[in-house]
């Protein structure tokens, strides 16, 4: 029996270099993953402007949250497709032609005298493409299907699910199965940032550098997952809960890892604060596991046959605070994972644990502010900090892998109606990671990446 994680232990320098490469790759994968779900097909169906459901699309307001929670139904007797023109086609397309500039302050460059150089790239580019088809198959049976392509046109299914709504004639029981976004009210799929560095929420995707270098399966709360969700909500969605059972493969199809299941729990409560607006507090927890050992056939690991499961957790609390046109989201997370996952060791001992290895843990904090000047103009700012609270290897610097990320930008919508959406989107973001760069046997150094992004974000 062999293990899949063949990297085991490496010299520190090579390990850190690999860390940088893999971390950058992971960041790239995250940042190029398809984005938000704002669906003009709904606006066309119900004759409502984008601003009815979106604070500023794609960010939902509570009316949009209720619509989503109710299975894309408004409850005005026009929800079932049978009441619509046969020509109505519930499809929308979203893409963002853009110009962007990316900088990484430390890159190993063969031609550089010191071997290290700051690299900047810039130019015109395309985002990925989202094809969003969604609606109702019948009254109280809803669906979403999102074939997505990266900027080269390579497709995958970002999201596909069918949901039975209002079971037993109550909004407290809805069942969904397929690949879907976890029940994150603070939704990364509906965020207002698009750049490579600032697009994804670090707090939803962070994994320790040692974990990344160990090659364990990437995982993110922000990634769409495969499974079954039971959720319920009050009529106005002020009170919400959800319980999801998910395959432990981070949403990858074909059951590539093992036969284990994860659980995601979420709940939130909103309350009115007079003229200030609707305030919401909530929490979530993800209890997952991943295999560390793979049986082989002819020397090759057998996909989906993983064994030696080890666990990881993500827990978070958040508040969404409205002060009229200014709203502030605050979030704190605590995260941990098994020392086996954090070091790439195998539970059967075929790759032994490093000496004194221990579980890894880290905390994350996020504050995102929006100022909605009017439904056609919003200002966005976000700061995230992630701090390792315990390295799996006690000899590593305590702040190795800590990150600080700052993003700010704005979205201006020249028009706002019920047929399509268009936003002019400038954004700047910068991300500093502690100790993720090493030149040869030199000391661990911090590295910084930044993105400047200007895009025409359109959906129709």
């Amino acid at each position, binding site marked *: 029996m062999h293990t899949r994680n063949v990297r085991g232990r490496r010299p520190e320098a090579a390990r850190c270099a690999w860390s940088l490469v893999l971390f950058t790759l992971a960041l790239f994968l995250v940042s190029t993953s398809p984005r938000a779900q704002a669906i003009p097909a709904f606006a066309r169906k119900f004759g*409502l402007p984008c601003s009815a459901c979106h604070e500023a699309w794609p960010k939902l307001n509570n009316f949009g949250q209720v619509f989503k929670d109710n299975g894309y139904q408004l409850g005005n007797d026009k929800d079932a497709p049978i009441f619509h023109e046969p020509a109505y086609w519930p499809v929308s397309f979203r893409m963002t032609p853009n110009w962007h500039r990316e900088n990484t302050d430390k890159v190993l460059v063969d031609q550089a005298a010191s071997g290290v150089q700051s690299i900047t790239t810039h130019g015109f580019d395309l985002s990925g493409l989202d094809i969003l088809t969604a609606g109702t198959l019948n009254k109280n049976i809803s669906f979403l299907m999102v074939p997505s392509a990266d900027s080269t046109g390579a497709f995958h299914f970002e999201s596909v699910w069918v949901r039975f709504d209002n079971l037993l004639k109550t909004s407290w029981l809805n069942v969904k199965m397929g690949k879907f976004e976890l029940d994150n009210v603070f939704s990364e799929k509906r965020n207002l940032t698009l750049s490579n560095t600032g697009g994804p929420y670090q707090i939803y995707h962070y994994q320790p550098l040692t974990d990344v270098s160990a090659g364990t399966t990437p995982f993110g709360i922000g990634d769409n997952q495969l499974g079954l969700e039971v959720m319920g909500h009050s009529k106005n*969605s002020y009170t919400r809960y959800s319980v999801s059972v998910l395959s432990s493969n981070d949403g990858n199809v074909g059951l590539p890892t093992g036969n284990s299941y994860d659980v995601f729990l979420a709940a939130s409560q909103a309350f009115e604060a007079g003229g200030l*607006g609707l305030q919401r507090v909530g929490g979530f927890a993800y209890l997952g596991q991943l295999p560390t050992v793979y049986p082989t056939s002819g020397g090759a690991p057998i996909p989906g046959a993983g064994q030696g499961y080890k666990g990881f957790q993500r827990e978070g609390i958040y508040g969404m605070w409205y002060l009229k046109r200014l709203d502030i989201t605050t979030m704190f997370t605590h995260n941990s994972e098994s020392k086996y996952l954090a070091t790439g060791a195998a539970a059967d001992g075929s790759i032994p644990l490093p000496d004194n290895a221990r579980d890894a843990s880290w905390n994350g904090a996020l504050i995102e502010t929006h100022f909605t000047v009017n439904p056609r103009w919003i200002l966005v700012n976000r700061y995230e900090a992630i701090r390792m609270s315990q390295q799996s290897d006690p000899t590593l610097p305590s702040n190795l892998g800590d990150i600080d990320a700052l993003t700010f930008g704005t979205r201006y919508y020249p028009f706002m109606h019920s047929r399509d959406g268009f936003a002019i989107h400038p954004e700047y973001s910068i991300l500093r990671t502690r100790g993720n760069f090493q030149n040869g046997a030199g000391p661990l150094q911090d590295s910084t990446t930044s993105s400047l992004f200007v895009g025409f974000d359109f959906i129709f």
Partner: protein
Amino acid sequence: MSNKLNRAMWMSLSLSLLCALPALAQETHVGKLTGHADAGKKNYQRWCIGCHGPFGDGNGENAPWIDPKPRDFTVATFKCRSTPTGTLPTDQDLYNSVARGFTNSNMPHWDALTKQTRIDLVAYIKTFSDRWKTDKPGDVLKIPTETPINIQSIAHGAELFQKLECWKCHGQQGRGDGPSASTLTDSKDNPIRPYNFAAGTDDSRFKCGTANEDIYKIFMTGVDGTPMPSFNDVIQPNDAWDLVHYLRTLQVNRHSKENEVLRAAGGKIPKIETPAAPPASQPAPQPDAKPQGGRK
């Protein structure tokens, strides 16, 4: 000097009050809530402008594709009221309408919005017509306690359904297919369909609510801007409750006390002598009458 100072102070105070008056006039009150038109304007632009238009005249960009057409706030004619036909509704009526939405229309229920947002919207809606400055809402209809639901009440309601000629629009089976149905128009001359009771299920709603009290209110106040007249001056409250009980039996797929009573009676409504009849001086409103309360 002192007199001059006093005069200046009074003038200043008077000017301040004068300036404040328009703002006060644009306030709306429901319970402890106070709505402000300036706040409502922003919300209107977010949620309402697409259908009701920037001027509140129902000519939003979606209006051409919407049936029934969006309400024209400039004429201040409202369907769902607790006040007599032709009069302005109360703030509470408008507030309820925003929260409830309108069944069989594009107007969703907006109870996902905060109470403050809704009351602000009501305040802003009232700025579209000067009628709110000259008229006051009518007296709120008093709804007496509902009479017992029994087969006699249902049978009397059935008699009234014939006598008041409800069937001309709503059809004998309440399917909205009476002989006049195809000719009906609203106050903007747009075709309008009578309510189809027979399509009702457990979760279906009426235009202005779901409860028996709401049905009572609908035909006692009328649905202004539509051909549905007010029967407040035509029938007595007890008769109105009988009619409510009969109308519930037209919702054949709905689980209701009325349908239970009817089933218990063998599913047939007995013929009974009707003691009440419309006074000669106040004939029953004609089902094909002009829309009520419309101020084009």
